[in-house]
């Protein structure tokens, strides 16, 4: 299978190890992975602000870049949702290059479970962890069941995470509440965003978790910023890093 790795802009610049872990995970499954080096961003910041004219050329560039691969895999549910659910605004519905890329783009855990049928990852993660279900992965990609609906769904992140040896997944009070990142929302509605994030972190701490694990680094970047400023007793890790066998960094 001819797979392209899509590394979101902020992961490329700030969290390269998340992308390296993603690459290693895919390679461990025998997948040949390409990284088209001219890639930048999916265009979500502009699209979510309503700036279609600014998002459209970025979306077109993305589709041209990733056309022709059997799959495009990305360690961020939010960016995948942008391609799958919102790129339609920028392309004709019968644009074959667009529909091919849209249908071939997957979030990492979704790709592993749904396409490669991986249900177990070898390795151990001997920690008390809690899963932050990032909203776009949860409610736009349906990577797991959401608390509002009564539709049964498999939780792709959980399946993979709990297959690791010695991991203990702690239960949260509010299982899938938003962390308040929301892209530019984090800046334009700073007070509300921060209040949401602090509450989210507190729920994970109260659950007795050592490390919060999520499929979207953007939520984690926001909450890591809050944790670090307030010196709260919790660490964050992208699921790709936990699955790829990264050790939990010692407490700062």
């Amino acid at each position, binding site marked *: 299978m001819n797979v392209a790795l899509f590394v979101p802009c902020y*992961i*490329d*610049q*700030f*969290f*390269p190890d998340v*992308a*390296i872990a993603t*690459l290693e995970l895919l390679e461990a499954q025998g997948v040949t992975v390409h*990284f088209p*080096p*001219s*890639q*930048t*961003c999916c265009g979500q*910041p*502009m699209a*979510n*602000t*309503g*700036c*279609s004219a*600014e*998002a459209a*050329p*970025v979306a077109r560039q993305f589709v041209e870049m990733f056309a022709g691969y059997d799959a495009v895999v990305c360690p961020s549910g939010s960016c995948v949702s942008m391609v799958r659910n919102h790129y339609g*605004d920028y392309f004709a519905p019968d644009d074959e290059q667009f529909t091919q890329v849209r249908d071939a783009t997957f979030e990492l855990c979704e790709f592993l479970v749904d396409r490669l049928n991986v249900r177990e990852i070898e390795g151990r993660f001997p920690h008390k962890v809690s899963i932050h279900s990032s*909203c*776009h992965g*949860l*409610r*736009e990609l349906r990577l797991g069941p*959401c*608390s*509002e*609906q*009564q539709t049964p769904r498999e939780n792709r992140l959980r399946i993979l995470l709990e297959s690791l040896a010695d991991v203990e997944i702690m239960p949260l009070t509010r299982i*899938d509440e*938003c962390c*308040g*990142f*929301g892209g530019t*929302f*984090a800046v*334009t*509605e*700073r*007070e*509300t*965003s921060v*209040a*949401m994030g602090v*509450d989210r972190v507190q729920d994970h701490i109260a659950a007795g978790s050592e490390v919060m694990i999520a499929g979207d680094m953007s939520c984690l*970047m*926001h909450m*890591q*910023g*809050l944790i*670090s*400023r307030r010196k709260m007793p919790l660490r964050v890790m992208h699921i790709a890093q936990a699955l790829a066998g990264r050790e939990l960094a010692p407490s700062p």
Partner: protein
Amino acid sequence: MSPSLPIIDHPRAARDFVNNVPRSHWHDDALWFVRVKRDRQAQSLPEWEYLREQASAIKQHTIANLGTYLQEFEANASRMGAVVHWAADAAEHNQIVLKLLQKNNAQRIIKSKSMLTEECGLNEFLIDNGIDVVDTDLGERIVQLRGEHPSHIVLPAIHIKKEEVGETFHQHLGTRQGEADPQVLTEAARGHLRGKFLDGEVGITGVNFAIANTGGIVVCTNEGNADLGVSLPRVHIACMGIEKLLPRFADLGVFTRLLARSATGQPITSYTSHFHGPRDAQSELHIVLVDNGRSRIRDSDTFRDSLNCIRCGACMNTCPVYRRSGGHSYNATVPGPIGSVLGPAREPKVHKSLPYACSLCGSCTDVCPVKIPLHHQLLAWRKVLVGKRLLAWNKRVGMKAASILFRHPRLFRFAGYTGRTALRVLPKALTHNRLNEWAIDRDLPTPPRQSFRAWYAENRKQTKPEDVK
């Protein structure tokens, strides 16, 4: 709503409420409690998702054939002796109600909770015309006594603590100072309202559902105040938005099952009252059908589904922004996610910040019993607002710059390298100051020396190396 209203800036309007952390938490917990009750009720019905599907389909069908069903409703309601009035907007609605009151020489109105009359500003209008209006829903009476507006469409006084209600009642109803026992306060309100009920000359109610094939209307309350309010006076005026219609009586069950469960987590409202014409030959039933911008929403392919709304308030209870910033921060008759869709439809300029008062988490869409794609509509509104040139210039410029950056991979690499280096070498005072909104309350991530693309070029040789930093 008059166009002279000030432009609302949600972040600023929310600031005091959010920054009062204990109060914001108390508000958040109160609404989350309702959301949890709602979840339990939804889980108790194996057919929950099927009901939502049905409700959405019935509403879509009704809105698509609205003209036909409204005429059918008018014919059937008139046949049973109700008088049907048509109002194009809020002003016409208020005039119709005033004329009816004047014709009946009525000075004292007892009103049950109705978000439509809130939307039309009926209370203020009637009071300006020398008519005494008493809201009889307990929560709404509390906000009325305090000179406020409801902060929630189902729980109008959810923002007020019982101690504050005690203070209000002490001032207006003469209860003991410092009284905060809900039982005592409720008894005081009951005694006070009983007098108002007995004095009332005309009862005004909202309408939860109107049924085309019977001509009947349905009013749902938990306090029975609407029943009392229209049973004592001779004249009942029911005010409804034209989207409240259902085609058949048989459709109603789908909605009454969803409404109370979604709104308050009850299996059904305490009172689901049906009105089929005036109660006797001496009585009158007037039904005012109000458009007030609804036809315009109906014409829009993007926002049409927002007319499905049955005003249950579930989207507010689940919205993490609403729960922390409070209903008044929206400065709109209907706050929260659905209000942020409806507000800009009425006054795009006034309500332009509301579609951005949302983290796009999508919980509102999934909780909505009639399947309005709320967060997608909020996103769609942002596009419309940008098209109307209503986005702040600094955001606009920022997004233009980002677009240029992302369209030029070399520039992106260079900017990334420069940014990371700056973050590493500059003193924290320069990177974490008041100019950087992100870093006022949050630390920035520790920048790595190497981007992923640089690492890849070094470690995976199969791709043609580029001039990466």
